[in-house]
């Protein structure tokens, strides 16, 4: 098999995720209890036996650095296996921050030269999916492709949010020649959306990136926007089609909906068969005992993790390790991060709490009328979700409406009024 080096694009800070990305990059965002979003890309690489990985990250990498550790969790630690975090470093020019995906790779050509792979795979660290990369690599080699790009079929009315490929598909084949590519076109002509999974012959990648090398001054910053549209004419470029579940976490709403996809008999997220690995050191996952459902509890469509204690009533919700729902509390359609405590009699509807949030007795959070988007960020929050930042403590009996954002680290005395109306932001 060809030797392969992979890059994970894990850089972006995404304002769309509001206080959840206050101090972590999007790829380090927790998902489904034990995992972080980047675990999906890392596990896919592990299962494809790719053991040389560079992670391109520049926004608040601390939680990512801790999470990745020495890479042993994904079998990326050994004589010929490694995972390297590649933050921007000061080069010959003053400002060498990564300007985009291609620019980030172009800053790390050394990493490619050192390892001298046959192929370079570039994947996004932001998606929830299980894909057999080996199939795509085989496809790439069978077609003697220079470049292969992964695609998935999306509905035409949301296609304008993606990079779209025109693929000459033939029945029975998992893809074909890529003959066109447009980044987020206003009038979509195709339903094949890019998964941000690129496989390059190393020689071709180096040629392409010469044009974007930070010191040559040419403006080719993003693979999707600046490189792929022209690439299809110059090289043998193929589109590889994928038909499994693909969840994205770009906005609060998508992040919430992807979690809700965990439930139901037809759920297409099968965490067990996907064999996702994480680093069990983080948030003391390994030190916690099994989840406890108490005598008086009611649970229906709930994802539970170690260290959870449920004494109240929980429906359609995801409880991360160490969450405690006290007797008489009601939690619906919510995602509660590590060690959140919901005191007795509190009611939460459609709420995301970050780590170590505490909600006081008989508080009522969320569930108000959807009609009022968040006043400060109407484009981020209009579906009725309410978001509470980490370590914020809500006083007993407080009322908080829908589409609210409560900033991290607020103590009870920060809430002067007993009622926070829908659409408000508290800082």
């Amino acid at each position, binding site marked *: 098999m060809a030797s392969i080096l992979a890059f994970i694009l894990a850089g972006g800070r995404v304002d769309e995720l509001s206080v959840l990305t206050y101090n972590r990059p999007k790829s380090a965002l927790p998902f489904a209890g034990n995992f972080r979003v980047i675990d999906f890309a890392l596990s896919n690489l592990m299962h494809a036996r790719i053991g040389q990985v560079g992670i391109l990250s520049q926004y608040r990498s601390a939680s990512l650095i801790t999470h990745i550790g020495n890479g042993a969790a994904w079998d990326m630690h050994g004589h010929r296996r490694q995972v390297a975090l590649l933050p921007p470093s000061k080069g010959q020019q003053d400002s060498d921050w990564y300007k985009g995906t291609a620019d980030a790779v172009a800053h790390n050509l050394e990493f490619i030269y050192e390892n001298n792979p046959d192929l370079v795979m570039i994947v996004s660290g932001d998606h929830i999916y299980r894909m057999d990369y080996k199939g795509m690599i085989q496809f790439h080699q069978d077609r003697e492709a220079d470049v292969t790009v992964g695609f998935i079929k999306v509905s035409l009315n949301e296609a304008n949010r993606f990079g779209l490929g025109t693929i000459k598909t033939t029945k029975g084949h998992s893809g074909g020649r890529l003959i066109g590519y447009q980044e987020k076109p206003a009038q979509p002509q195709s339903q094949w959306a890019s998964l941000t999974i690129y496989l390059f012959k190393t020689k071709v990648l180096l040629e392409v990136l010469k044009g974007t090398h930070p010191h040559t001054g040419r403006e080719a910053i993003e693979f999707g926007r600046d490189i792929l549209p022209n690439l299809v004419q110059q090289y043998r470029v193929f589109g590889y089609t994928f038909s499994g579940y693909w969840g994205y976490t770009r906005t609060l709403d998508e992040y919430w909906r992807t979690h809700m996809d965990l439930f139901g008999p037809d759920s297409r997220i099968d965490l067990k068969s996907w064999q996702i690995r994480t680093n069990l050191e983080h948030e003391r996952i*390994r030190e916690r005992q099994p989840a406890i459902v108490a005598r008086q509890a009611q649970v229906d469509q709930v994802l539970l993790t170690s260290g959870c204690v449920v004494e109240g009533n929980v429906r359609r919700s995801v409880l991360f390790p160490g969450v405690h729902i006290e007797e008489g509390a009601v939690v619906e359609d919510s995602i509660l991060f590590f060690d959140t405590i919901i005191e007795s009699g509190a009611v939460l509807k459609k709420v995301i709490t970050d780590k170590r949030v505490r909600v006081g007795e008989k508080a009522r959070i969320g569930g108000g009328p959807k009609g009022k988007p968040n006043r400060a960020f109407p484009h981020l929050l209009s579906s009725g979700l309410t978001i509470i930042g980490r370590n914020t403590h809500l006083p007993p009996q407080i009322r908080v409406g829908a589409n609210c954002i409560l900033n991290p680290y607020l103590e009870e005395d920060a809430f002067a009024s007993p009622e926070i109306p829908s659409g408000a932001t508290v800082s």
Partner: protein
Amino acid sequence: MSKTLVMLLAGGVGSRLNALVEARAKPAVPFGGNYRIIDFTLSNIMNSGLDRVGVLTQYKPLSLMSHIGSGKAWDLEGRNRGIKILPPHTGEKDSDWYKGTADALRQNLDYLTRYDPEEILIVSGDHIYYMDYAPMIAFHKRRKADLTVAMMEVPPEQAVHFGIAQVDGAGKIIDWEEKPKKPKSTLASLGIYVFRTGYLLKALQDPGAMDFGQDLIPGAIRRDAVYAYPFSGYWRDVGTLAFYFAAHMDLLNPRSVLNPEAWGVQTNLEEEGLQGDRSPVIIQKGARVVQSFLGADTIIEGRVETSVLFPGVRVGKGARVINSIIMHDCQIEAKAHLNRVIMDKKGRVGEQARITGLADLPNREFPGHLKEGLTLVGKGVSIPSKTRIQGNTIIRPWVGEGDFSGLNVAPGETIRKK
């Protein structure tokens, strides 16, 4: 660095646990959803600040060795710390199997002296308890003892199972009886000893001393400074199926002090060569769960009450699991009912099967192992759909559907592979 070396006796066969110890030593028997029995002792060692451990194994050590791994899970891996498995080895004589607790140490004198310890703490991996050994070691030093034995008060009817001591006002042991028929006191040995190293080495020179309780202590209390260190708190022997079951029920009782997480109990979650990590628990629509422990990666569509489910268990639609202990990756198919069942790993119960533990008669073949109204299902057993299994039954490991001769299994039966 601690000046105390720990020797962990993990050789116990635990034969009264029957099918649960068919392929593993008693300390390796799974417990409480995430753990194995030995985790309680290993975690006590870690939480007492001790950092050198020798593990004496003998009986079916494979799962124990893979569980202990590098010792990292208990912070026993590093430049100044370590855990070492010490299996029996051939010496000058043909058969050098360990003949008892003292004999096991005698065969590892090299290891006992390698780190030049001041004291040697001897513990076993058979019990569920939390104890900080540091105050016991401090007690031992304060008394300038040769040997200190941890002891606790037990109910009179249980005293027959233990080494029983009488002590003077200073805690010095003045009388010792090993498993007495008519105990003179209720102060029982927990099998936890601290020895002054020099004293232990000398005592082991007596080639007749095979076992601490039987051979070594009775002589020692006449000549030497042997003290009882008083312990009180949760401590449970899980050496019988009834005790093992009762300890799990303690776990589910909110008023019990048995609380592994609060005790800082650690386990090794990476032992089994899993392709991925265990995913979270999923409770599906229509499921009902009350007063239960759920290990990672369990998926529940049916009903679970007062039960401990280990990782990877599936409970299908309309199935009922009540008062039961179900180990890793068992599948309980739709509409199957289980009550008072202990089920070892990787088993399968077919649709609409009914298994109860309740029965008036003990198991016929193993009346001493099973008479309390439980049914034991061994590892990898597959039970056909619609089978009815009565109480105090033992289904031995790897019994398949074809090994059942009918849909009804009478109380007290034992089923083996044909």
